[in-house]
């Protein structure tokens, strides 16, 4: 029962739950934990910003403990905890369970995620626990049940964890709508947001609970101890695998008690895991953790980590968020961090205590990344963080929510519109947009032709919308969520499931081919019933699955830092010697990009002209710029052939030498050409694919799901083509455009960049490739104009090659 204790700060005594337990452990409350409790006691909503290891989760639960332990009678769900990761709900369940079990408190607590067995779900629906730990998707499911009003009636606290990670995404849109629903179902509920330290906490607070909520900031951690690997080896020009550094990384791991090696992509994870095992003469216990592995395998690694049974884990962002591993004393980041906040979050995994410095080692995989790592260190030293992007709520997510609302019971359009606008991302939603989205849910919302007889929602006598048939709620539940992945297949060795893999990767394998998966070399045997059958093999030189995920764009803030570093040769001494020399050579041979100079280089190479532009604005913006420049150069008759975009620069090659670069990079690129171009771009089709699934236009495919009959799935590209031809203004096309211009294409950043660069463009014509351009020439992920044209180009080229092989010369 609550005890009177004194907090560490000089404040009045307050009744705090769990104080006996804390005292038994020899622990003391942090001031910010007490502040959260007090603010909540005063009836306020709260946002707590704290670094990892600051007892954030416990702080979030304190008010709920206080309330639960002070009443005798209670019924129904009392506290809801929402986190972005299933693994985190399990972890929090374990941690919150400790005081409950050890003190024998009369509180029931359970998790509910996609992994929860249906029998347990059914029981939770009848008899909810006091505290429920769940994910945004499971919350959406819960509010779509017909008993939702009853279920949430007595809800007192809603805790949203890792708010900063959820906010600016489609999952955030979905969660914001669910929260708006909860506010309507349980007006008495208080909201507690938990977030990493962010530069703009007001935004997060407004997002969660409006401007009335209290913001509580925990003190910053001790400055972390971060080094960049000073490799004795030569750092490669390009590439992303850091093979050159593996021996040195292994030595660092061997010196540490427990370490996490963070990588940016799953492909890196597989490869580096394998490389480390090759060097593992000390028999260290090294584990692997990434999102494609079977959940059971992942859970086992997490458990072994928690028990201290592992020496090292190679992980992707699947381990990024809040899981509590106290024993980790070194974090290794392979590859550039891409953003300061992400880096700090990852580094926070080591020495997970507030008053000890974290220890981290950055391992750049190529020369540009060396510069980026140094820039990130400078930013951390100056305590700078990346800002949070705010986004407009997507129409596709809204459509999903409207459908879900109908599943829970009849609704009135006016009331739902008002409720939806209380969700922060939808606060400016126009009625017309709402009505069009609603119409899409009802019958597809096509102007030229209606699916009158197939309506999903019908209007009641009193003007309420309701489901046309109860079976439709099954359709909603099968398609819930906003995460759309490439089609996946299950991977099975004998009877054991190992995880899932992208279907397109397998499509290009033949039986007998080998690839890396789950940390081992596997031989592809056969595709059986939509399952990839493999066996272990000793073969060398396996293929690496080329996963789509994990390509993070460089943040604006960090890119500015990179350019600052480039213009200060004095600070290059912190860079590895061969990287410093590389930059010096560049300054001598050509020019260096800087904050006030957009460097452009043009040089001939093997019969083509290469134009290299160095804006340092991130891959998405560069990719868009690349497409636009190709288009403009084509029109100017300069015959561009292709381009490659990285986070740092764009390289375009053309048959003719481009002239008048200032005109090429003029601001009107965006106005005049972007719109024409956007309609015909593979990127728009890519976002449409996601929109079509989220909005419920096509059925979601589940990993390994057997295709019914012959090919019942559709290419969303074909649907796009037809919709674009007949109804260009359809709400889903608008949703795709909105996504494209804010995400993949990043027009906001591109336009900032174009405006900023006017008058700063400096062109240097060279006889041959410059030092800085070498990595660009080596980069292999190239884009041509559009997928259709690219395909055509490849076909021509392939046929030509075959004809030459057959000795037929140049006939076509």
């Amino acid at each position, binding site marked *: 029962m609550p005890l009177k204790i004194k907090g560490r700060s000089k404040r009045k005594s307050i009744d705090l739950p769990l104080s006996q337990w804390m005292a038994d452990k020899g622990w003391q409350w942090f001031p910010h934990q007490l502040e959260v409790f007090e603010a909540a006691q005063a009836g306020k909503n709260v946002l707590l910003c704290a670094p990892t290891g600051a007892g954030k989760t416990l702080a979030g639960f304190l008010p709920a403990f206080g309330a639960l332990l002070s009443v005798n009678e209670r019924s129904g769900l009392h506290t809801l905890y929402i986190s972005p990761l299933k693994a985190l709900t399990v972890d929090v369940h374990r941690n919150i369970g400790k005081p409950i079990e050890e003190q024998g408190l009369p509180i029931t607590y359970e998790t509910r995620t996609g992994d929860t067995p249906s029998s347990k779900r059914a029981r939770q629906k009848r008899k909810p626990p006091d505290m429920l730990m769940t994910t945004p998707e499971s919350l959406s499911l819960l509010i779509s049940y017909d008993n939702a009003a009853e279920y949430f009636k007595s809800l007192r606290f809603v805790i949203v964890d890792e708010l900063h990670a959820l906010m600016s995404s489609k999952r955030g849109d979905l969660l914001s709508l669910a929260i708006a629903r909860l506010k309507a179902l349980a007006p008495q509920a208080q909201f507690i947001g938990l977030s990493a330290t962010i530069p703009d906490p007001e935004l997060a607070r407004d997002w969660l609970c409006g401007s009335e909520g209290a913001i509580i900031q925990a003190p910053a951690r001790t400055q972390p101890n971060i080094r960049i690997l000073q490799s004795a080896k030569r750092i490669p020009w390009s590439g992303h695998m850091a093979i050159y550094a593996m021996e040195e990384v292994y030595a660092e791991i061997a010196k540490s008690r427990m370490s996490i090696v963070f990588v940016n992509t799953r492909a890196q994870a597989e490869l580096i895991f394998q490389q480390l095992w090759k060097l593992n003469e000390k028999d260290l216990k090294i584990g692997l953790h990434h999102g494609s592995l079977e959940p059971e395998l992942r859970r086992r690694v997490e458990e072994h980590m928690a028990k201290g049974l592992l020496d090292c884990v190679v992980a992707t962002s699947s381990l990024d968020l809040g899981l509590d591993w106290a024993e980790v004393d070194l974090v290794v980041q392979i590859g550039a961090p891409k953003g300061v906040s992400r880096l700090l979050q990852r580094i926070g995994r080591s020495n997970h205590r507030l008053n000890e410095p974290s220890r981290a080692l950055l391992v750049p995989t190529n020369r540009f990344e060396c510069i980026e790592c140094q820039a990130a260190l400078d930013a951390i030293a100056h305590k700078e963080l990346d800002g949070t992007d705010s986004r407009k709520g997507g129409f596709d997510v809204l459509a999903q929510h409207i459908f879900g609302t109908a599943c829970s019971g009849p609704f009135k359009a006016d009331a739902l519109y008002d409720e939806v606008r209380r969700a922060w991302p939808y606060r400016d939603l126009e009625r017309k947009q709402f009505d069009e989205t609603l119409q*899409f849910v009802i*019958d*597809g*919302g*096509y102007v*030229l*032709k209606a*699916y009158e007889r*197939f309506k*999903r929602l019908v209007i009641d006598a009193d003007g309420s919308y309701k489901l046309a048939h109860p079976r*439709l709620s099954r*359709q909603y539940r099968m398609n819930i969520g906003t995460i759309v992945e490439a089609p996946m297949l299950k991977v099975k060795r004998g009877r054991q499931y190992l995880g899932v893999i992208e279907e*397109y990767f397998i*499509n*290009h394998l*033949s039986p007998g081919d080998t690839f890396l998966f789950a940390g081992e070399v596997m031989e592809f045997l056969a595709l059986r019933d939509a399952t990839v059958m493999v066996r272990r093999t000793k073969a060398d030189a396996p293929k690496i699955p080329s996963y789509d995920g994990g390509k993070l764009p460089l943040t604006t803030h960090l890119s500015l830092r990179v350019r600052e570093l480039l213009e200060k040769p004095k600070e290059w001494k912190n860079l590895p010697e061969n990287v410093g020399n590389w930059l010096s050579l560049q300054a001598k041979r050509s020019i260096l990009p800087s904050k006030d100079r957009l460097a452009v280089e043009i040089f001939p190479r093997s019969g083509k002209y290469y134009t290299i532009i160095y804006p340092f604005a991130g891959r998405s913006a560069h990719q868009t710029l690349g497409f636009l420049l190709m288009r403009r150069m084509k029109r100017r008759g300069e015959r561009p052939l292709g381009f490659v975009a990285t986070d740092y620069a764009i390289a375009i090659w053309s048959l003719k030498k481009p002239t008048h670069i200032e005109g090429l990079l003029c601001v009107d690129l965006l106005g005049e050409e972007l719109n024409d171009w956007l309609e015909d771009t593979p990127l728009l089709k890519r976002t449409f694919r996601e929109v079509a699934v989220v909005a*419920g*236009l*096509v*059925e979601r495919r589940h990993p390994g799901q057997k295709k019914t009959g*012959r*090919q019942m*799935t*559709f*290419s969303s590209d*074909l*649907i796009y*083509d*037809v*919709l674009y*031809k*007949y*109804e260009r203004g*359809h709400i889903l096309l608008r949703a795709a455009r909105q996504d494209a211009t804010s995400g993949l294409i990043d027009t906001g950043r591109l336009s900032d960049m174009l405006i900023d660069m006017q008058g700063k463009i400096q062109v240097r014509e060279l006889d041959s490739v410059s030092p800085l351009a070498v990595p660009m020439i080596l980069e*292999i992920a*190239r884009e041509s104009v559009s*997928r*259709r044209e*690219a*395909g*055509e180009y*490849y*076909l*021509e*080229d*392939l*046929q030509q090659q*075959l004809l030459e092989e057959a000795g037929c010369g140049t006939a076509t």
Partner: protein
Amino acid sequence: MKIKFGGQDIILHHSGMAFLPGGIAIVSDLHLEKGSHFAGRGYFLPPYDSHATLVKMLKIFHEQRVRQVIVLGDCFHDEEGFSRLDPPARELFDALRRFDPIWIKGNHDGEFVPPGFTAFDIFEHAGITFRHEAAPGAENEMSGHFHPKAQITHKGGQFERPCFIEDGRKFILPAFGAYTGGLAVSDPAIRKLFQSPRIHVLGAAKIFSLPFRN
């Protein structure tokens, strides 16, 4: 592009249609009203697929001076498809009758035959057998059903395109419908029908013939 098959000169068109001498067009797997079929299951695909497919088909008939058409089955996505055609699409569909159509029954539209059409399970003409789904062992046979597509990897580029596949004995057409996806030619269901097949990939304005690679 022209190939020899069953002793005939056959022209392959980049739309996925094939032509026999005498102005005979062969087209397969239109899957008309696939959009409304899914609308009935709660997925509101744009309802314009039949219109788009028929407009495209009639335009090619006109350009190529087609006199007769052989539809190799699965003209509709289901047996009720015909009754769901809206008036403009119905008008276009009725225009097909001017082309003396040979209607071959498919597995999707089953026993349904539109008024005014003559239906066949198997049709023979000029020494070639036309049916919906290839029969193992049959020769000089043209069919559809499988929606063959080629998966092509070249110089780091990966993409898929519908294609014709043939080996001089058997010939399978790609699907013509606006919403029709495809099955990889390397899939055993297709692969086992052929000895050493060639594929003819649909480009934007022409056909690309490639050797078959697993």
